[in-house]
């Protein structure tokens, strides 16, 4: 009998695991994909090798890459970007750690309070989460992003459209800023030296520390070369929370190292009926290498398998769903894509994937994105507006960009992509509403070795009026910014759903009729069952990237678990957090 079983070692699960291991609990952490504990030998800087969703080491599938990826039904033009493996989607994230907009929490009294998704607020106040933000920000750690050419270009555009700079962690007005991100700032030779993979000497640890501006955030960070795992520049959980979880006895008195089992696909949450209540009792999983099935019991079970897989696991296991909200309310920031073509270098393929952003409370945000050429070409062919110059698929919006939105292919693609380092991409982030129609269900037509697969439905063209209005506003702002930065040509793609910032499919909420979790992130209908990843979020946060808020919420959830089921006391606010870069963690790494 374990104290706690955590399902999923992505952005959220390792946070609960590390925090409770720090309290001395016996925690089992399950991960469906492989373990990424030796990234320098496991990864490359090559985008197809890394990001091909069918074959890449950052795909959603078994760790044996000769086996097919795991299929999920997406019955529309869309792209669902899941990732299995220890670290989950923090492996390819850009480390961005903005806090949520205060207006998406209960009790917000600002003058813009009606501008948010007010029907789906967090069931507590923003101020309650701030100490947990601070705890996570110190643990990862979160720092102010360094600048390269593409950030300098982006800031020029933001100033050009009259935005003020925000020099705090909290957002109160339309503004721009360097990202607050979970990427160690460059020191030593990092950022000052160009060296190829064939000839790296000055950029090795410890001469180079922190971000080396290599440009490969999306392919996984193993910089600087030779650095211990917990000192890699980008603070994916495989390099931050998981090492802490595995060495809990080394950095805190009474800590109990977590047991990590990778290649373990959870197939069922086992429950019992007690005094008329359904109570979680343990987890059954399948070893994806051997096919063997295992079961362990636990006093508490934590789901952290992601916004698509948590509902699937819940529904496949026949857990109660009386209000039919398990899997509903999927939010994705309804991204769009605007980019400019410049006559001068932008350094698009260099440096951190995204180190600059704009925030528009109640509407969304913008952030710059640098990409290598394959992903750049992908981004330019992902559209709900047909093929530019040929047909519009019933859309093809026009605005402060050049011509109608749509895919760019043929000679146009070759011309526009002839200098990848003279592009500036802007990701358009929409503050989107929780809507019941956007959801995860079980596929009626397909099952795999783990049961019926998830079907992810997004009704992009039928999104709420506020969502659609916000998206158009943000796309226009993006185009104006890129133009003000000096772009010669500006294009909008009108992306279909790129399901990558994912939130709220197992949402906590004030209203029992439209939420799955209570204010402690415990399932309303299954005691001792908690959710601790993006799916627990009440809404789309107003546009900020979700990982930091999930990690802060997971920290709070860990405290609640410790208080309610293990008789412990809270620690955030009374103790000092240990950074994941602590030398005791480094020394204890296997």
């Amino acid at each position, binding site marked *: 009998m374990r104290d706690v079983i955590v399902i999923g070692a992505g952005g959220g699960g390792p946070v609960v695991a590390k925090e409770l291991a720090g309290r001395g609990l016996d925690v089992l952490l399950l991960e469906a994909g492989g373990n990424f504990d030796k990234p320098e030998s496991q990864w490359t*800087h*090559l985008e*197809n*090798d890394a990001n*091909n969703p*069918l*074959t890449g080491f950052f795909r959603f599938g078994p760790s044996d890459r000769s086996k*097919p990826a*795991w*299929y999920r*039904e997406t*019955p*529309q*033009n*869309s792209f669902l970007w899941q990732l299995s493996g220890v670290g989950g989607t923090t492996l390819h994230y850009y480390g961005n750690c903005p806090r949520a907009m205060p207006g998406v929490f209960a009790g917000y009294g600002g003058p813009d309070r009606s501008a948010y998704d007010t029907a789906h607020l967090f069931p507590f106040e923003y101020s309650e989460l*701030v100490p947990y933000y601070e705890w996570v920000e110190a643990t990862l750690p979160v720092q*102010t992003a360094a*600048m390269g050419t593409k*950030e300098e270009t982006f800031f020029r555009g933001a100033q050009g459209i009259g935005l003020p700079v925000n020099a*705090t*962690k909290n957002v109160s007005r339309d503004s721009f*800023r360097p990202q607050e991100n979970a990427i160690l*700032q*460059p020191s030593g*030779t990092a*950022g*000052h030296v*160009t*060296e*190829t993979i*064939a000839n*790296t000497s000055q950029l090795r640890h410890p001469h180079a520390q922190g971000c*080396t*501006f*290599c440009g490969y955030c999306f392919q996984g960070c193993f910089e*600087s*070369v030779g650095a211990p795992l917990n000192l890699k520049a980008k603070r994916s959980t495989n390099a931050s929370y998981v090492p802490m979880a595995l060495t809990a006895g080394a950095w805190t008195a009474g800590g109990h190292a977590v047991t990590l089992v990778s290649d373990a696909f959870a197939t069922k949450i086992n429950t019992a009926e007690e005094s008329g209540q359904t109570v979680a009792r343990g987890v059954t999983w399948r070893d994806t290498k051997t096919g063997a099935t295992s079961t362990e019991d636990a006093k508490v079970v934590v789901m952290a398998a992601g916004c698509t897989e948590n509902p699937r696991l819940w529904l496949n296991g026949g857990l109660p769903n009386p209000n039919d909200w398990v899997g509903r309310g999927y939010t994705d920031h309804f991204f769009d894509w605007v980019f400019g073509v410049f006559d001068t270098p932008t*350094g698009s393929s260099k440096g951190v994937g995204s180190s600059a952003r704009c925030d528009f409370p109640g509407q969304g945000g913008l952030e710059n994105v640098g990409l290598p*050429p*394959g992903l750049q*070409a*992908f981004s*330019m062919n992902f*559209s709900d507006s*047909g*093929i530019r110059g*040929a*047909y519009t*698929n019933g859309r093809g919006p026009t605005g402060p960009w050049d011509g109608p939105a749509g*895919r760019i*292919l*043929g000679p146009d*693609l*070759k011309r526009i*992509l*002839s200098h*990848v*380092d003279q592009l500036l991409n802007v990701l358009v982030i929409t503050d989107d509403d929780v809507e019941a129609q956007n959801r995860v269900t079980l596929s009626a*037509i*397909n099952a795999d070795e783990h049961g019926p697969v998830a079907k992810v439905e997004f009704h992009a063209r039928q999104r709420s009026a506020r969502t659609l209005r916000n998206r158009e506003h943000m796309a226009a702002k993006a185009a104006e910014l890129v133009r003000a930065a000096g772009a010669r040509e500006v294009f909008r793609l009108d992306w279909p759903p790129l399901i990558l910032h994912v939130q709220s499919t197992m949402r906590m909420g004030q209203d029992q009729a439209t939420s799955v979790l209570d204010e402690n992130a415990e399932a309303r209908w299954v005691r001792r069952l908690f959710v601790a990843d993006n799916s627990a979020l009440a809404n789309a946060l107003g546009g900020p990237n979700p990982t930091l808020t999930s990690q802060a919420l997971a920290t709070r959830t860990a405290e609640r678990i410790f208080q309610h089921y293990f008789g412990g006391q809270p620690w955030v606010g009374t103790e000092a957090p240990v950074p994941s870069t602590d030398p005791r963690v480094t020394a204890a790494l296997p």
Partner: protein
Amino acid sequence: MGGESVGIDRRQFLARAGVLGAASVLPSLIPGRVAAALLRSDPVLDALSPVLQQVSRDTISGLVAFVVPGPDPYSAAQGVTTSEPGGIDAKGAEFLLDALDHFFPLPDEVLRPVVQALGTAISDTKPGLLPPNLLNVPLDLVHQLDDALGTLLRSNDTVPLSIVVALFLNFLATMVQPSSLVGPFPASPFANLSSAKKAEAFRTLEQDTASVVARVDENLSEPARQTLSGVLAFLAGALLEFAAFGSYSEWSAFDPATRAVNGVPVGWRLSGYLSETGFVPVNGWDEFLGYFENRTQVSG
């Protein structure tokens, strides 16, 4: 086996799928193998394989040239070429074929409606459009191919996805331009289309999905129709996105043994990616410009 009138309908079907054209250019390979396979109940796919591979290779190549044109014959056939290398040179077709047939995790349950619908489709085209080379394919061979393809499409065997996609694109091509049966690529009406007509085929697929589905099989039930519509909408996007991604990524020059590139990937040269280091990936760039307004940290 029916008479010549039935033969003309089925000849139309096989022609529009590209299969008849492929058989017409691979005559010595086919008749004996197909007939023998049918007699012996050997896996039909094996016998048809040379024909179907020709169909899928030419069709997917036509798709890749559409997305990333170059100086190759597929670009020439569509009337849009560029002087520098394109997706064909970047092995974009091989990338897509490999992905579709070996890794694309679309399960049989999803494909079956498409495949079965194709098997019963195509009876609405007026006869008489066939070019001489296809009219001259012997009736016996037409029947053998028809039986073999019908057997394959009705079977529970897994049909490689590239073949399903190719048959479908060819079907679309003959919808938007019946004369696409004639051209430099007998095995692929799609590859014979002009670039503008290829766009028209995708417009039909994306914008008129419902009518395409209805024309594929008017007898589909509503849930199956929705599933098929969803699959087609997803596939239409994915084919274009993956053709672009594969052509510009390192795939064509990647050596799985060393997990490094051999030579310079075409897409890197086309985009100037890593041109400053002689096309070698880096562990870091001299790119650090400091902090905005020299602020290295902000308050809570």
